[in-house]
């Protein structure tokens, strides 16, 4: 009886493709963490699990949204065999630019136009920052780690210089800046943006020529060159997209925190890379999916939430996160040996 069940499970496992197998594995891991979270969850006065309350679940989504958005483009960068360390600094620059434009610029236009322009300015600066890294990497063939490390330092400096080292406060009144914050800080808006961008990037990766090229360049760059693929353009694009999404996360950050903060986003690049790696994307490039990255992001979110609901010390939380990353990579490696 038991062996028959095991046999049919094994034959099912063989029939599905390797890629789907990896996705199923990570979805399974996410489910396991969720079950654990429910079991460990404290209960409310009426006996229901706090973890499962709608408010808690949407809180998790909201908390992971910013890093989640950044990790979508980070996945593209890593798929090409690169890395982008500058996203945390670009996020800070974006918060600063959007807040400065809204508070210091008084053109007397309608609120909607002014807010649109401020957001576009932040996104443009962010995309340009990413494009600059991408151009250096693509044209001069310098290691992405070094280029984006330089970007991480330099762009943080730019954000601090623009804001004179101080937070740019976005008020709670009726002015244009406060209106901006009121629009973009909603839970539904933040989560909606994450979901929409996730769908766009999933389609971009799995259905378009660009997505194919991204994976091909990371899989075997020399073969991609010999096959006539536009390697430089692909690299320029992925770093530009990475800048764009980091900038978008910065806009949401500024609204949520009611300020432009040049010290925001420190360490976000590592959180995003962690989400991508937990999601099964290979750091050497060529293999990985957006669904995997989303699962990786949610795993970190659920885990953090579970530990916080149980009042676990935040330092212990970090230790557990470190362990989970190692575990995720170990599981992926093991799968390879079996094949």
């Amino acid at each position, binding site marked *: 009886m038991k062996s028959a069940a095991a046999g049919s499970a094994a034959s099912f496992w063989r029939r599905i*493709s*390797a890629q789907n197998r990896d996705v199923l594995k990570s979805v399974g891991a996410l489910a396991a963490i969720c079950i654990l979270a429910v079991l460990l969850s404290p209960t409310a006065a009426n006996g229901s699990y706090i973890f499962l309350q709608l408010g808690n679940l949407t809180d998790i989504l909201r908390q992971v949204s910013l890093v989640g958005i950044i990790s979508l483009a980070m996945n593209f960068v890593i798929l090409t065999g690169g890395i982008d360390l500058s996203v945390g600094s670009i996020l800070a620059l974006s918060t600063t630019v959007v807040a400065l434009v809204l508070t210091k610029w008084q053109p007397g236009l309608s609120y909607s136009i002014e807010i649109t322009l401020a957001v576009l300015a932040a996104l443009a600066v962010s995309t340009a920052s990413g494009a600059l890294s991408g151009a250096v990497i693509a044209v001069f063939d310098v290691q992405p780690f070094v280029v984006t490390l330089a970007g991480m330092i330099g762009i943080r400096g730019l954000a601090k210089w623009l804001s004179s080292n101080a937070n740019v406060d976005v008020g709670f009144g009726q002015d244009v800046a406060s209106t901006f914050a009121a629009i973009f800080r909603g839970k539904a808006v933040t989560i909606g943006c994450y979901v929409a961008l996730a769908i766009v990037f999933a389609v971009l990766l799995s*259905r*378009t*020529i*660009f997505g*194919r*090229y991204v*994976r*091909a360049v990371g*899989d*075997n760059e*020399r*073969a*991609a*060159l*010999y*096959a*006539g*693929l*536009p390697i430089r353009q692909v690299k320029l694009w992925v770093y530009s997209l990475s800048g764009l999404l980091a900038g978008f996360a910065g806009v949401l950050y500024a609204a949520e925190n009611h300020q432009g903060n040049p010290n925001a986003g420190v360490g976000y690049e590592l959180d995003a890379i962690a989400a991508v790696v937990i999601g099964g994307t*290979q750091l050497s490039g*060529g*293999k990985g999916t957006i669904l995997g990255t989303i699962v990786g992001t949610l795993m970190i979110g659920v885990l953090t939430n579970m530990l916080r609901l149980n009042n676990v010390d935040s330092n212990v939380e970090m230790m557990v996160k470190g362990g989970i990353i190692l575990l995720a990579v170990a599981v992926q490696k093991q799968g390879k040996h079996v094949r």
Partner: protein
Amino acid sequence: MSQTILQLSEINKRFDGVLALQGASFSVFAGEVHGLMGENGAGKSTLAKIIAGTIAADGGRFFVDGSPVTINDPHDAQRLGISIIYQELDLFPHLTVAENLAIGNRQFKERKFVRLADLDRFAEPFLEQVGLTCGPRCAVRSLSMGGRQLVAIARSLSMRARIILMDEPTSALFDDSVERLFNLVGALKQQGVAIVYVSHKMDEVFRVCDRVTVMRDGETIGTRAIQEVSSAELIRMMIGKEWQARDCKPAISNDETVLSFSDLTTAKLRDVSFDLRKGEVLGIAGLLGSGRSEIGAALMGLDRWKKGQIILRGEPASIKSVKKAMEAGIRWLPEDRKLDGLMMQMSILENGTISDLRPLSWFGFVSRQRERRAAMALFGSLSLKFASTSLPVGTLSGGNQQKVLLSRCLLGNPDIVFLDDPTRGIDVGAKEDIYRIIEQLASQGKGILLVSSELPELLRCCDRILVMREGTVAAELDAGHTTQEEILTLATHAPAQVGGPA
């Protein structure tokens, strides 16, 4: 006379089930230069690496100075006084000359901390012996290939090597360094060092060797003293039996020239000229590094043209990138399918279509249906065998992987196809399929350039054959009126003792 210093008997070695060496036996005298000859893939380098302990033999016996020994790793070989100098010298470019000599060397007595004076004292006598003047403290990366070769030899000497294996030592050298190397080889011989000289260049073997052993298909065919053998006999030994089958020769249907090289010169080619007609298969023969693959690199815009031009369909063409070449209707099958061709983690389907996705897509979105239909038609005509096109391409056999790359080449319906050794390392059945495809492509009026290491293959499939040597066209032959002997003679720069019937 001379006494036997090294003797091998019945050495066998398999790689992934393929026999690389089969009962190979030979012996080396003290103070002789012993040539080891054979075509590409005959097993020369494998045998040299087994002697040096870099790879372990599956079976066979070794004798040094008449007593049986085991050689399982490089340390065993070093203890026995055996040292190897690889084709791609295994030096550390960022270390100094003296450090390269001392590192991993049992003769150098290490202390806890390195003293530069110790290193200098250790290295200097050997540097003097090989005639390297740059001093022990200069960095290896600052030396020319010839200089590095001397460092590698000094390293062998400093290990007290009595048997030095040199694997194609002149392949990366220019003329004056070659001369210096030969002089040094002569001097070492006088000191009683035995040298195993792996080469497929006929003139060198006659120049430096005392005896020569010929290998073919992993077997040692025979050993001859150099005074008692002609290059014609060596070539016959290397080729073996005559090849008769030549049934896939397509007839040239028309005389329209589709591609011409005119005095084309790049970093690795000198004044290369030839014409390729529609519906013709033009073979390119030559040793590794002779410039045969570099014709492809020049054609695809990968190597810069210094001089001369390429004429496409009667018009001078400017090809500066692979993309430009592809737009001009040229496709290329690279030599090394794993390193240069396939994206191993991507699927069979994706590998087949990656070069020509545009016509299969709509505003940047790949139409899966069109992609599948186009690929399946090609896969079918190439008799590609697969369980599912969504499996990673790495799950296929070598022959089927090559067919996936061929599909990639053919999907864009090119006019000109450059195939760089398409049948290397694939099984006989897949080879036959590829010959059939070449024939079909020619009959469709495509111009085909076929590089091959296997001469019978060239004779069988081609209309004409270019023989490349040292970056130039050594000869252009009519495939119907030439022989393997003639091609090999031209490719190896042997004295012209054998001529094909004109």
